[in-house]
């Protein structure tokens, strides 16, 4: 059990030790990533063929996601029952079965141990006793749910169904984007110098988007004065925020003298990159959706991507980006998505700052584990609303986190 005290203000404060303490980090692996939560694993399109696989992570745990010969999807811990070596070392591929390279123990696509090399020895010599139970240390197997082209998994028998887990506030917003079979456009990894929760917190922070990301505001792509809103699941764990395509003609930023206010001198010479086709038919220009603990789905104009948050230690996080389109995209739409790839990722006009900002927090609080951040925009409640000048979804994250962590 962890012994920690939360600030008396409750939901409006987050103490900085949550980003720093090794024992908190270790406990998160057990209670959250191995607990009753659903984690994103991959796109179904990445394992389209029978007997194909990808390797990924759930928290710190290495995981194999595979499709068997009959077409069913499985996920299992990438750890041999024998000595713990990785069973599969490639990022992706096709295999009839998986063989651990160390001693050639083999597994099927569901992660069941098929064969122990020389189990009975040779010519009556060596081998294991008939009573030996190597299966007792078998890799853990996930419950898997393929949902509209995304594959999620949980290690918990107690987790509700995936749909129930996401809940009625956010599930329709997830379905809204995933309307057709998906096609992978490519992937990369952004390494963030901070605790994994700082990135999740950043994604749920609807207040920062147009203030930190000046590109957004300068070109009136996203301003808090534009029509939009935020949905938060009842338990606070998941969120979705959106902005409508309507052009903002106001000058609230200019009046407040903000850094992000428009400068007349600054205009794109070639704005083709910003052209959006309303392919989802509801005039939403940006939707950012997060599922606890580590999944983000974005629609930024016609850029679509899955972002997977992979913790790599208390102060290091990998963000695995997979950008995708729909399988039936024509050439013009693919071109649009590739041009708009400029907006996102480590070099993205509107997302490059996130890695820096969250890293600044990790560094800024280095000597202040007894202090706390102030999260009072929009009061102290967790819930949906039509203003994004709120930190309601951030409070939601901490409500869910504290409930899992019993803190």
């Amino acid at each position, binding site marked *: 059990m962890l012994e920690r005290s939360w600030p008396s203000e409750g939901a409006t404060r987050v103490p900085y030790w949550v980003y720093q303490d090794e024992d908190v980090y270790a406990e998160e692996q057990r209670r959250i990533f191995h607990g009753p939560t659903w984690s994103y694993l991959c796109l179904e399109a990445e394992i389209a063929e029978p007997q194909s696989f990808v390797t990924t992570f759930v928290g710190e745990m290495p995981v194999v996601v595979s499709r068997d010969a009959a077409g069913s999807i499985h996920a299992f811990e990438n750890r041999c029952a024998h000595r713990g070596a990785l069973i599969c070392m490639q*990022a992706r591929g096709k295999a009839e079965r998986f063989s651990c390279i160390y001693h050639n123990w083999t597994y099927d696509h569901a992660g069941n141990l098929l064969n122990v090399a020389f189990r009975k020895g040779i010519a009556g010599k060596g081998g294991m006793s008939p009573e030996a139970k190597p299966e007792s240390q078998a890799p853990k197997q996930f419950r898997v749910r393929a949902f509209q082209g995304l594959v999620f998994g949980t290690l918990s028998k107690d987790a509700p169904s995936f749909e129930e887990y996401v809940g009625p506030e956010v599930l329709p917003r997830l379905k809204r984007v995933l309307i057709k079979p998906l096609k*992978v*456009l*490519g*992937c*990369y*990894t*952004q*390494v*963030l*110098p901070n605790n994994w929760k700082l990135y999740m917190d950043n994604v749920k922070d609807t207040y920062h988007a147009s203030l*930190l990301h*000046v*590109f957004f505001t*300068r070109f009136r792509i996203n301003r808090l004065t534009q029509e939009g809103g935020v949905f938060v699941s009842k338990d606070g764990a998941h969120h979705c925020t959106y902005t409508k395509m309507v052009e903002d003609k106001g000058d609230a930023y200019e009046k407040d003298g903000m850094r992000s206010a428009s*400068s007349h001198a*600054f205009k*794109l*010479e*070639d704005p083709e*990159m910003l052209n959006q086709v309303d392919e989802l038919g509801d005039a939403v220009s940006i939707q950012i959706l997060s599922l606890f603990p580590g999944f983000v789905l974005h629609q930024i104009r016609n850029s679509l991507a899955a972002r997977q948050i992979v913790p790599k230690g208390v102060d290091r996080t*990998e963000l695995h980006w997979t*950008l995708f389109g729909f399988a039936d995209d024509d050439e013009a739409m*693919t071109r649009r998505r*590739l*041009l708009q*790839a*400029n907006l996102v*990722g*480590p*070099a993205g*006009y509107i997302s*490059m*700052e996130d*890695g*820096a*900002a969250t*890293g600044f927090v990790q560094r800024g609080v280095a000597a202040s584990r007894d202090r706390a951040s102030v999260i009072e925009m929009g009061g102290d409640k967790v819930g949906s609303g039509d203003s994004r000048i709120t930190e309601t979804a951030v409070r939601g994250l901490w409500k869910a986190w504290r409930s899992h962590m019993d803190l």
Partner: protein
Amino acid sequence: MKEVENLHARYAHALDEDRLEDWPNFFTERGIYRIATAENEARGLPLPVVYCEGRKMLRDRVQSLRHANIYEPQRYRHIVSSVLIEEGKEFIKSTSSFLVVRIMENGETMLFASGRYLDRISAKEMLYEERVVVCDSRRFDTLLAIPL
């Protein structure tokens, strides 16, 4: 050969000396600049990390870096070597290796990127018609602001 190496060197020095405004002028008017990863290229996936088509888009990148994007002060040091050249009538093809070291203001220095430049150079203008930067790694530390 010498002219091509000179172009590569001037390009690298311009970026390393923070003369970003000069960067678009190393490309022809319709010149293409694309940063990709070896992994996506090998899988036949088109996703760019950065993609600019023409000097206008290149200048937009510089404008945004100067006036919109927020990033910690940092410098690069490009090391470009092993230049292979295939001369044609209209254009010259060049393949070279690069290392980019990133130096932060506090002195922290890391090997930020390695890879290949795949170039098509206009023989007449001695400018890049296309420069594809294929990064060896799929990982980018924190952010990629200054072009490679």
